[in-house]
């Protein structure tokens, strides 16, 4: 879907006019293309401790580290440890894992402040900090929790398509854990174009670094439900691009579009209603028989039947709950008890910002999507013994056929209500799904990552 306003404020006379009037000026976002650099310029790594040094070493290290070497494969970036004057930084990584008192935030935060005006378009600020827990000393907890407010506010100040996101490590998780590096890399990259103002927690040092950052899903077999169009079709394409063999699932009635998706991604089409009692068994049988294994399940199929609760009917309530959450629970149970979904499996479910912040007219939808968030939290620990995990992605306003049906004015307003002042693209959701499906996300357990451009509502 075209965002005409975005095009207007980025070109010619209308750009100048918008500047003079002080209108919102959404920037075209940098998006991932294979073969392009991770970041477009030098990266400033701030922080004084061992963690900052270790992370800087990975970012600056040579790519393809010597075979057998214990040194991590480097990312070959131009890393600075002190801000150089007049340098346009592509990214700032602020390592705050060693702060013990709010007083200690000033140093790295004010150093970050000094380079923000020169941050490149589409730049990145990534904080790396530790989770605050009730067991922490009060000052420690205050310092750690302070990062939360700091990052969310900072992200709201960034312009020009730049984003700010944080990686939060649970106690004991090293800064070089696969999921820490995976999350830092995801936030630095163009793959996270529409993820803004989010803090993603890394729970453990499980997971593995991929052999190739460009094709992290090589050799993996992924099922995507609701794959015939919109976000699902984009997820199928993105997982295939990352190396996965894709089984595209949708209801039989959507078979024509589903076949086109399957043929585009060189996968297979499985016409199936996810609410069928045997859906899990049929998905597993298809994947095993045709592709020899099943590693990733993306629960994307979903419907809306909006009604104010006062006007809600049983069929509208029941159908939304049946498709959006009950089917996922049933399929997961079939997979988990099969014994054939046990080689570092990944479940990624589609939640929604409606499930977090609520949305008028969507009690049924929000109940189902809130349910998804609870479901992945409780499902992930069941997969951990197999090196697996389950997580969710919560999209905000995404430009799809569904949102194109929102009345024009409402749509314009809805698009601007986030820090990036625009709607996201289906591929932005797909990139987050692909990251959570990747080997590097093994230490992210039961979390929900928002892809909303830091929508003003909710957490």
């Amino acid at each position, binding site marked *: 879907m075209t965002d005409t306003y975005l095009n207007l404020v980025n070109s010619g006379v209308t750009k100048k006019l918008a500047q003079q009037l002080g209108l919102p000026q959404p920037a075209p976002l940098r998006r991932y293309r294979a073969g392009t650099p991770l970041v477009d310029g030098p990266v400033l790594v701030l922080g004084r401790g061992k963690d900052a040094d270790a992370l800087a070493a990975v970012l600056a290290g040579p790519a393809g580290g010597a075979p057998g070497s214990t040194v991590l494969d480097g990312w070959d970036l131009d890393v600075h440890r002190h801000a150089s004057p007049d340098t346009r930084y592509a990214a700032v990584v602020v390592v705050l894992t060693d702060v013990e008192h709010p007083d200690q935030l000033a140093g790295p935060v004010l150093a970050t402040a000094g380079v923000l005006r020169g941050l490149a378009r589409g730049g990145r600020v990534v904080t790396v900090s530790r989770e605050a827990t009730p067991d922490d000393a009060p000052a420690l907890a205050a310092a750690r929790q302070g990062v939360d407010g700091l990052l969310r506010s900072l992200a709201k100040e960034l312009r020009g398509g730049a984003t700010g996101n944080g990686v939060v490590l649970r106690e004991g998780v090293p800064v070089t854990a696969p999921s820490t590096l995976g999350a830092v890399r995801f936030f630095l990259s163009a793959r996270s174009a529409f993820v803004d103002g989010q803090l993603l927690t890394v729970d453990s040092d499980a997971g593995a670094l991929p052999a190739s950052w460009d094709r992290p899903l090589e050799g993996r077999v992924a099922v995507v439900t609701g794959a015939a169009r919109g976000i699902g079709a984009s997820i199928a394409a993105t997982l295939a691009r990352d190396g996965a063999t894709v089984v595209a699932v949708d209801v039989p009635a959507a078979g*024509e579009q*589903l076949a086109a998706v399957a*043929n585009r991604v*060189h996968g297979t*089409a499985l016409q199936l209603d996810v609410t069928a009692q045997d859906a899990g068994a049929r998905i597993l049988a298809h994947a095993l028989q045709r592709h020899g294994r099943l590693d990733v399940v993306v629960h994307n199929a979903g419907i809306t039947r909006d009604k104010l609760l006062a006007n809600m009917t049983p069929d509208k309530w029941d159908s939304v709950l049946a498709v959006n959450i009950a089917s996922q629970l049933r399929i997961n149970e079939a997979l988990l008890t099969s014994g054939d979904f046990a080689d570092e499996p990944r479940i990624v479910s589609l939640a929604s910002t409606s499930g977090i912040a609520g949305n008028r007219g969507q009690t049924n939808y929000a109940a189902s999507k809130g349910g998804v968030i609870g479901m992945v939290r409780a499902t992930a620990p069941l997969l951990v013994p197999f090196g697996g995990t389950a997580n969710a992605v919560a999209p905000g306003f995404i430009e799809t056929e569904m949102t194109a049906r929102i009345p024009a004015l409402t749509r314009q307003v809805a698009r601007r209500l986030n820090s990036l002042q625009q709607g996201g693209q289906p591929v932005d959701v797909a990139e987050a799904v692909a990251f959570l499906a990747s080997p590097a996300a093994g230490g992210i357990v039961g979390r929900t990552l928002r892809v909303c451009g830091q929508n003003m509502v909710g957490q």
Partner: protein
Amino acid sequence: MAPSPRKPPTPTAPTTRRALVLGGNRIPFARAGGAYAHASNQDMLTAALDGLVARYGLQGERIGEVAAGAVLKHSRDFNLTRESVLGSALSPTTPAYDVQQACATGLESVVGLANKIRLGQLESGIAGGVDTTSDAPIAVSDRLRRTLLDLSRAKTVGQRVAVAARLRPKDLAPAAPRTDEPRTGLSMGEHQALTTAQWGITREAQDELALASHQRLAAAWDAGFFDDLVTPFRGQTRDGNLRADTSLEKLAKLRPAFGLGLDTPATMTAGNSTPLTDGASTVLLGSDEWAAAHDLTPLAVVVDAEAAAVDFVHGVDGLLMAPVFAVPRLLARNGLTLDDLDYVEIHEAFASTVLTTLAAWESDQFGKERLGLDGAFGTVDRARLNVHGSSLAAGHPFAATGGRIVATVSKELHRRKQAEGRPVRALVSVCAAGGLGLTAILEAA
């Protein structure tokens, strides 16, 4: 079964191997002038191929050969199958050829490719068929055509004027496509009306068969049986002709459409005859080796096939009665009787086609005099006949019917064998214009 007058030749040379049905795909069949009114044969065949490719992950695959055809075909579609392959997700290096055997086209495509696989000429093949009566070719009259050709050969103005002067206004009327029999001028329905009368088939029996067809096809759709056999096309998600809620009462109200000029009561209606239909179907075939290399589950083996033809112009046999002769020969060659068949698929060109076929097989006199047997050929258990419905309910896009039947019954054979673990067999029988009939035996792989 009684022995034939002559000993049948020894079947199947020992050097051949199995040819397998590995799957199928069709688009839902639509009534003529419906959802596919503006779709060409090539559009529909390409869609059916693409759905097959998507289901089995054959993108970019070089298939050994694709064989398909259409009964009603534009002259520009001389290479219809190859053009459809080029428009599909298959490798453009996949060879293809067109087949035409009237309504037996689809089944003949299956048999031809299966034989090549059995011989080792092919590892894989896709058989198919397509037809549209909505986008049928319309030709100019023969006089106009000849005049235009003569005009192109005329050298002087005088010659051109002379040629053009031959034209009469009625020559300008377009010639609509006809499926009438060229030698009798009778439509297929009128031919079948003669056969229906000859065998004394009642209106009630025909309506009951039509009702069963609709009920069984509807049940199969409701059970999701077609989820991995059909891919929707242009908004059509189920067979457009299917009337799940039809009843004997509703069928009984329809006025007869054929045989109105005969001495006997007219019994054939729009309800117990197939309507004009648009659609396309495909069947994936391969060797055991190819199936294993592509992680495909063999559904059925194409065991044997037999064609027959009747002299409907001069003889006593009805136009669509050729399978009556093909099947006894086919079963004898394979040492089988009707009782050895778990499924019998008889294409429902008309309800009475199926019923006259069964009547001929049940007749002692016919068995002795025409089939050279000691008595009646046998009886088909109705519970095994067209178990998921057939053309009366699904519709009948001429060349696409064979592929529909083969894919449907192959899935059913596989399912039955999985459940019961014993050999399971099916007979497929398709009648065709020109007094043709083609029949085949499939066995669960």
